[in-house]
C-alpha cells in the first residue's frame, strides 16, 4: 500500500513538473488560426472580429521570430495568419513559405500610411506578401532618478568610465536577442547593423564580451517589469514597451541613441499552407480598420502604421509622442534588418554564444 501511494505521488509529481497541458477546440464552426506575438493584440479586438464575421479566432503565441519560423517552415502546425518581423518576412518570402495577398479583399489598405508601405518594400518588394501591423525602434530606457547624466549614446551600455561614474555597473539589462544585441554593438562601433563582415562582427563580439560583467541579466520581456518597479536603472527595450513603461513610471526616459538603431516593422502574412486564406484576408482587412487599429494601439502601445487610426487618437501627447511617432531625424539614423542568409545567421549565433559563455 505504501508503495502504491508513493508511486501515485511520484506520478502526480512528474505530471505536474512537466506541466501537462492540453488544448482542444471542439466546435466545427469556422475558425481562423492566428500565430502572433504574446501581448500583441487587444483581446477585445478578437471578440469583435468573431462577432462581426462569425469566425472563431484561435490564437497561439511566440516570443521571438526564431521560435515561430520552424513551426511554419516544417508545417508541423498550420496557421492562417502570422505576424513576423521584417527580416523574417524576407527570409520566408525567399523560401517560398508565404502566399501572395489579394488586395481586392483588403480595401482597408487605404488606411495604411504609404510611407510605411514604402519602408516595407525594403523587405517585401511590391508589398505582395505582408501588410504592416506595428512598427517601432530599439532604444535605451533609463531611470532619470537613478542615472543623473543624460544619455544619448549606446556608450551608456559599453563605456566603463561613464557606467562606473553613474554607479550602475552590473545593473544593465541587456537584450537577449542575437540580432538586436549585435545591432547595438555594431552601431556603437559605427558599422552597419546588417554587417556580414566577420572582422566587424568579431569586434562587436569583443565589445559584448567586455560588457558582460556590467550586465545584470539578458532578458526581453522582463525589462518592462524591472524598469517599472525601479529595480533596474537601465535597459534595452522596444519603443512600444517604452510608452507603456513610461505611463506606469514617469521617471523613465527612452532614447534612440545618436549612433543609430534598428527600426522594425511587423506585418501580417499568410503562409502558403494556410488552411483558410479567405478568413486570413478578412482578418488582415479587419486589423487595418482605423477603429480597430486604434483599439490595438491603446492596448499594446506599439506604434501603428495606420494613419487614419493615428488621426483618431484623442490624447495629444500620445498622438505627437516622439517615442510612438519619432521624427524624420530619428528615422533617418535607423535601419531595418535584412535577412543575411543561413550561414550568417549561424555565424551570429556562434558569436553570441561566445559572448554568453564568457565567465
Amino acid at each position: 500500500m505504501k508503495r502504491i501511494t508513493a508511486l501515485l505521488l511520484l506520478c502526480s509529481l512528474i505530471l505536474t513538473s512537466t506541466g501537462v497541458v492540453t488544448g482542444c477546440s471542439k466546435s466545427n464552426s469556422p475558425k481562423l488560426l492566428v500565430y502572433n506575438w504574446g501581448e500583441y493584440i487587444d483581446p477585445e479586438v478578437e471578440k469583435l472580429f468573431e462577432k462581426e464575421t462569425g469566425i472563431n479566432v484561435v490564437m497561439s503565441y511566440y516570443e521571438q521570430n526564431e521560435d515561430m519560423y520552424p513551426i511554419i517552415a516544417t508545417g508541423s502546425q498550420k496557421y492562417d495568419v502570422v505576424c513576423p518581423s521584417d527580416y523574417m518576412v524576407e527570409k520566408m518570402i525567399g523560401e517560398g513559405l508565404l502566399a501572395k495577398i489579394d488586395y481586392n479583399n483588403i480595401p482597408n489598405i487605404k488606411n495604411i500610411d504609404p510611407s510605411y508601405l514604402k519602408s516595407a518594400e525594403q523587405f517585401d518588394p511590391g508589398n505582395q506578401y505582408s501588410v504592416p501591423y506595428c512598427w517601432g525602434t530599439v532604444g535605451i530606457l533609463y531611470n532619470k532618478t537613478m542615472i543623473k547624466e543624460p544619455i544619448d549614446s549606446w556608450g551608456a551600455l559599453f563605456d566603463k568610465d561613464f557606467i562606473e561614474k553613474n554607479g550602475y555597473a552590473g545593473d544593465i539589462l541587456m537584450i537577449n536577442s542575437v540580432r538586436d544585441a549585435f545591432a547595438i554593438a555594431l552601431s556603437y562601433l559605427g558599422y552597419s547593423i546588417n554587417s556580414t563582415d566577420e572582422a566587424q562582427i568579431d569586434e562587436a563580439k569583443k565589445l559584448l564580451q567586455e560588457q558582460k560583467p556590467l550586465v545584470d541579466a539578458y532578458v526581453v520581456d522582463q525589462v518592462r517589469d524591472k524598469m517599472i518597479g525601479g529595480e533596474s536603472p537601465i535597459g534595452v527595450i522596444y519603443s512600444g514597451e517604452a510608452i507603456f513603461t513610461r505611463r506606469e513610471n514617469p521617471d523613465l526616459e527612452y532614447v534612440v541613441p545618436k549612433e543609430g538603431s534598428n527600426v522594425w516593422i511587423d506585418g501580417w502574412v499568410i503562409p502558403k499552407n494556410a488552411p483558410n486564406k479567405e478568413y486570413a484576408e478578412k482578418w488582415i482587412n479587419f486589423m487595418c480598420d482605423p477603429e480597430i487599429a486604434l483599439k490595438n494601439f491603446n492596448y499594446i502601445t506599439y506604434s501603428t502604421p495606420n494613419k487614419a487610426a493615428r488621426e483618431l487618437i484623442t490624447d495629444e501627447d500620445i498622438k505627437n509622442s516622439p517615442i510612438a511617432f519619432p521624427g524624420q531625424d530619428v528615422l533617418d539614423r535607423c535601419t531595418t534588418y535584412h535577412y543575411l542568409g543561413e550561414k550568417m545567421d549561424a555565424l551570429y549565433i556562434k558569436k553570441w554564444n561566445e559572448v554568453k559563455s564568457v565567465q
Partner: protein
Amino acid sequence: MNTKKWLSYPYTIWMGIFVIIPLFIIIYYGFTAEGGGFTLSNISLITDPINLASLWLSLELSLVSTAICLLLAYPLSLILHGMKLKNNSFIIMIFILPMWMNFLLRTLAWQNILEKTGVINTFLKLLHLPALDLINTPGAIIFGMVYNFLPFMILPIYNSLSKISDDYINAARDLGANSLLTFLKVILPLSLPGVVSGITMVFVPSLTTFVISDILGGSKVVLIGNIIEQQFKTVNNWHTGSGLSLVLMVFILFSMAILTKYDKESEGKNIW
C-alpha cells in the same frame, strides 16, 4: 505473475512510440548532415571550446546539486522513517505538495525572492545589512536545481528505508551493535538502492535542464541544455542539436552504468 504479462503491453507500446522511436529519430539526425549524408561532425561539435565549457559547467553544477540533494534528503528520510507515523504518506504528501504547482511557476517565484529588490534583499535592507547578489549566478542555478529535484531524492531513499525490516535492526542490536554501527552496517547498505535511484533521478534532469538556468541565471550562464535548446529553436539545426544531445546521453548512460553496479539488488527499481 507471467499470466498478467499482457498488463504491461500498454506501457510497452507507450514506451515504443514516445521513447524508442524519438530516440531513433535523434540518432538519425545526430549522424546525418543537412543533405542527408552520414557524418560525425555533429558529434565532434562537442569539442568546440564553447560547447565543451558549457558541458563542463553543466556537469559541475549538476554534481554539486546532486550532492546537496543527497546530503539534505538522506537525514530527512531517516527522520521521516524514524517518526514511524501511522499515516506517513501524509508526511510525504507535505513534501510533495509544492510540486503540485507547475515547475515553471515555482522557479519564477524564486526569481522574485532572489532578485535585487526581491524578498530576501528587502528584508536585509530593513535590517540595514548589505544586499546580496543572489540572482543570475551559478549559485542561484544550483539552488533552483536542488529545490526542484529534492523530492526525487527523498522519495526513493525513504522508500528503500521503509522496506528494511525491523528484524534486521533488532538482530544487529541483539548482537551488540550500537546505533552508529547498526546504521553503517545494516541501514546504509540496505538503503543504497534508493540512494542510487535518487542520484540518477536528480543528476539526469539537472544535467539536461535549460529552463532553470534561463530563469535563475538571467541567460548569463549557458549550460549544455541551453546550447541544445538553441540549436533546435533559434538556429533551427536539428542535426547539430541531436548530435550534442547524443553526447549528453552518453554521459547520462555512463553515470547510470556506474550507479547500477551498486544497484545489484535492484530494489530501488521499484520506484521507477
